[in-house]
């Protein structure tokens, strides 16, 4: 038997073996029970990386290693792809290991974003594993001189009905499956599933409670240097002077101070000394300038008057002859929101032998590699980026920026690992926020039919995605170097802004006018992008229309929906709350959206209590219910966990959160100033999953955000009669 070790990488394998196109023809077409792909296409990630061994390696001991270009960000992708691979290969789950995003190791799947881990990565693994299964059966059939139909896969082997068997590694003779995955592919019949569709517990949660090394923050290398960054007090401020000698006198443990323009890195052997150096720098460094921020006027007014790039992003039906006065018109607002990762961003970098190694919790190792290569002016082949889980990110936080910080500092101390840890203030003040949005809605309701005839949605927002995507100027440090790289504003309206602005309802005439503006704060992708603000406005407005028309909120929505699956989640959530008893000043509110109008369907109900207190009212979300349809569900508990978390997080966004700034700087710089939900505030949650095993899986991780906000706003209205259209829904707004 050829010898190889589990660490053998795929590029070391022998070429040749004669790539065999695996096709249906080899098995005949008669497999009636088999699932065949519904559409003509393979998952996108698989089209880009078509070879089986890009996704799956057979190890010498018969275990299988699955490679995903996605990173674990708390969504449980590691378990989901393991379930899928084990399923198609009929092997025990514990004999499947998963490698997360790493350059030159895993497929390039760009970003772990957009709720696409299952749709892209897990489905690619499914097809690759199914192709591997077919190839293994063919190889075994030749070995055993048997028909493939007389063979079965079990526990990492192929065996005959008369008991002969060969392990996967033996069958492959030390090689890997280099064949390309081509359609059609015979997938395992879903009726035979053992793992997929079941709530397999995530095995990494036990590793977490045992405090095993897991996070990028936990990495420790011999001789590792600790670093903090001295960031300017505000955007675009310039460093005038920093007395490194005084610092070294005050904090003797400081190893090195790296100053490049207004980028200041503070390195020390001990982390506490790096922290002290940062404290010292904040007190003693002198800065000038800084971009003025538009304090002193409502942000909504500011957004409305900014120069904009305008685009009619939806134009459906006929507005000729539309009533000049709409039935209802309302303006909504969503402030800047933080990702608010509990662990501030962190990265480790090593510059050695002309190669940069980076350990990062970035959502995109390949785009980060390209951006870092350009930043350091080195060849991308000389940049190795390994994804390691960090604290949950919920979008584009400081992960890429801190990796750039680490890369710049690693170059200053070649041969030593440099660990950069952002402080809480760094993360709060410098992370790219979710954009503020202003949303004007109007609609006309036919008084005879009670149906919406015309709908207009007009929105003002900055972009919802500024990921580096290979561009170094989007990395924070790059903008502050002596020779700065400055990002250019986008010249078009990006899709994240108007995500879910088009109603999923069947309205005859719909217009959405999107105004892309450049707001005052640094922004990028936050969970669900524009959908949160758009759905908050859209579903609040639907409720206002229903109230105006004197219609039941569920019936009003149902009569405007055509899609039976959309109706089903609404009916389900209505069913879940039918026995709720309401006391005085309690209210239930419902909302619905299909995320991106093409991913998961989600309907949410919130129960809110508005309680008068001596010093003003309090608003408490007592409970939230959701019904979600994400198509085929790989792991129901994983989907529930994501949806529960989405509800509670969105409730915190809706009731508690707003990034504040004065004319000089962002002023929400720690948790006391940006009070996300604590344990005394969180609602209990109940999630029902409508499983559709024969439908394709749909991205679900962001589906609850928008409906949750509107459901709460609607519940507040029903509890006390007050319609709040400006997030966050603070009790003092009830008095206005």
């Amino acid at each position, binding site marked *: 038997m050829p010898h190889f070790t589990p660490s053998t990488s795929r590029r070391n394998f022998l070429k040749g073996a004669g790539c065999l196109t695996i096709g249906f023809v080899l098995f005949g077409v008669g497999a009636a029970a088999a699932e065949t792909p519904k559409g003509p296409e393979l998952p996108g990630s698989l089209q880009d990386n078509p070879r089986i061994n890009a996704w799956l390696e057979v190890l010498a001991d018969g275990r299988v290693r699955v490679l995903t270009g996605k990173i674990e*960000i*708390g*969504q*449980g992708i590691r378990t989901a792809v393991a379930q899928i691979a084990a399923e198609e290969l009929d092997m025990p789950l514990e004999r499947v290991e998963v490698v997360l995003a790493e350059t030159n190791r895993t497929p390039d799947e760009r970003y772990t974003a957009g709720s696409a881990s299952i749709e892209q990565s897990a489905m690619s693994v499914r097809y690759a594993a199914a192709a591997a299964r077919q190839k293994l059966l063919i190889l075994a059939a030749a070995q055993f001189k048997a028909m493939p139909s007389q063979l079965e896969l079990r526990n990492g082997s192929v065996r005959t009905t008369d008991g002969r068997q060969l392990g996967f590694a033996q069958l492959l003779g030390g090689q890997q499956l280099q064949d390309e995955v081509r359609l059609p592919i015979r997938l395992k019949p879903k009726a035979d599933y053992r793992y997929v569709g079941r709530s397999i*517990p*995530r095995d*990494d*949660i*036990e590793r*977490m*409670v*045992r*405090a*095993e*090394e*897991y*996070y990028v*923050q*936990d990495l*420790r290398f011999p001789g590792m240097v600790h670093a903090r960054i001295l960031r300017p007090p505000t955007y675009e401020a310039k460093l005038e002077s920093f007395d490194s000698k005084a610092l070294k006198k005050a904090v003797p443990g400081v190893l090195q101070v790296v100053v490049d323009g207004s980028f200041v890195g503070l390195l020390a052997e*001990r*982390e*506490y000394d790096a*922290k002290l150096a940062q404290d010292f720098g904040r007190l003693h460094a002198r800065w000038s300038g800084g971009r003025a921020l538009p304090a002193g006027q409502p942000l909504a007014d500011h957004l409305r008057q900014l120069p904009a790039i305008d685009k009619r992003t939806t134009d459906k039906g006929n507005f000729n002859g539309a009533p000049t006065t709409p039935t209802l018109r309302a303006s909504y607002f969503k402030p800047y929101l933080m*990702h*608010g*990762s*509990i*662990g*501030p961003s962190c990265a480790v970098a090593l510059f050695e032998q002309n190669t940069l190694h980076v350990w990062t919790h970035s959502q995109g190792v390949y785009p980060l590699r390209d951006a870092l290569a350009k930043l350091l002016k080195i060849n991308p082949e000389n940049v190795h980026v390994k994804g390691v*889980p*960090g*604290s*949950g990110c*919920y979008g584009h936080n400081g992960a890429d920026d801190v990796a750039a910080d680490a890369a710049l500092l690693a170059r200053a101390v070649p041969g030593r690992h440099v660990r950069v*840890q952002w*402080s*809480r203030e760094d993360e709060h003040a410098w992370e790219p926020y979710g954009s503020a949005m202003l949303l004007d809605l109007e609609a006309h309701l036919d008084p005879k039919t009670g149906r919406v005839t015309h709908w207009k949605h007009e929105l003002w927002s900055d972009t919802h995605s500024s990921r580096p995507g290979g561009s170094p100027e989007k990395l924070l440090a790059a903008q502050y170097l002596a020779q700065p790289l400055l990002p250019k504003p986008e010249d078009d309206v990006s899709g994240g802004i108007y995500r879910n602005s088009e109603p999923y309802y069947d309205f005859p005439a719909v217009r959405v006018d999107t105004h892309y503006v450049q707001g005052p704060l640094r922004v990028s992708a936050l969970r669900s992008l524009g959908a949160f603000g758009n759905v908050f406005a859209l579903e609040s407005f639907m409720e206002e229309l229903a109230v105006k028309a004197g219609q039941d909120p569920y019936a009003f929505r149902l009569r405007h929906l055509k899609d039976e699956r959309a109706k089903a989640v609404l009916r389900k959530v209505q069913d879940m709350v039918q026995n709720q008893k309401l006391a005085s000043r309690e209210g239930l509110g419902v909302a619905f959206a299909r995320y991106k109008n093409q991913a998961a369907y989600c309907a949410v109900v919130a129960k809110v209590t508005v309680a008068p207190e001596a010093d003003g009212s309090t608003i408490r979300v007592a409970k939230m219910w959701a019904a979600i349809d994400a198509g085929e569900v790989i792991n129901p*508990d994983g989907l529930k*966990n*994501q949806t*529960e*978390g*989405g*509800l*509670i*997080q969105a409730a*915190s966004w809706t009731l508690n959160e707003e990034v504040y700034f004065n004319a000089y700087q962002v002023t929400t710089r*720690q*948790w*006391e100033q940006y009070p*996300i*939900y*604590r*344990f*005394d505030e*969180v*609602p*209990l*949650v109940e999630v029902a999953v409508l499983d559709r095993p024969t439908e394709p899986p749909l991205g679900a991780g962001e589906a609850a955000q928008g409906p949750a906000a509107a459901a709460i706003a609607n519940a507040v209205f029903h509890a006390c009669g007050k319609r709040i259209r400006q997030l966050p829904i603070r009790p003092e707004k009830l008095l206005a």
Partner: protein
Amino acid sequence: MDANLTLLVNGKQHTLRVDPATPLLYVLRNDLALNGPKFGCGLQQCGACMVLLNDIAWPSCQLPVHQVTGGVAITTLEGLTKPDGTLHPVQAAFVQEQAAQCGYCLNGMVISAVSLLKQYPKPDEAAIRNGLFRVLCRCSVQARAIRAVQRAAGV
């Protein structure tokens, strides 16, 4: 100025040469290579760095290490697991309830819950919310965490 300090961590004495003003968190993570307590804010606002000090949950991020010498029993998440690898009932309950997403705040929740159950073995929901109040969780698994503490307490 560095000094030799002796700490009692997870039942073992450790003599270390450190700046006595160093927050306990840095000593636990960097000098003793423990992963349990996490850096979250350094401001005692988020609870990611919780440890048990003689069975009381306390944030370690601002606590000068010299204040916990002299036999104060410091227990980290690692120290809850029995030497044979058996999980503490609170750890086990969080696994059973799958009460985590990214898991970064698990340390604070588990440590706080262990402290709570020492004082109140049968807490009601309000007491659990109160006991975990100092811990922030952005993935928002709090509803599961409450269930996990209830499971551990058998209530």
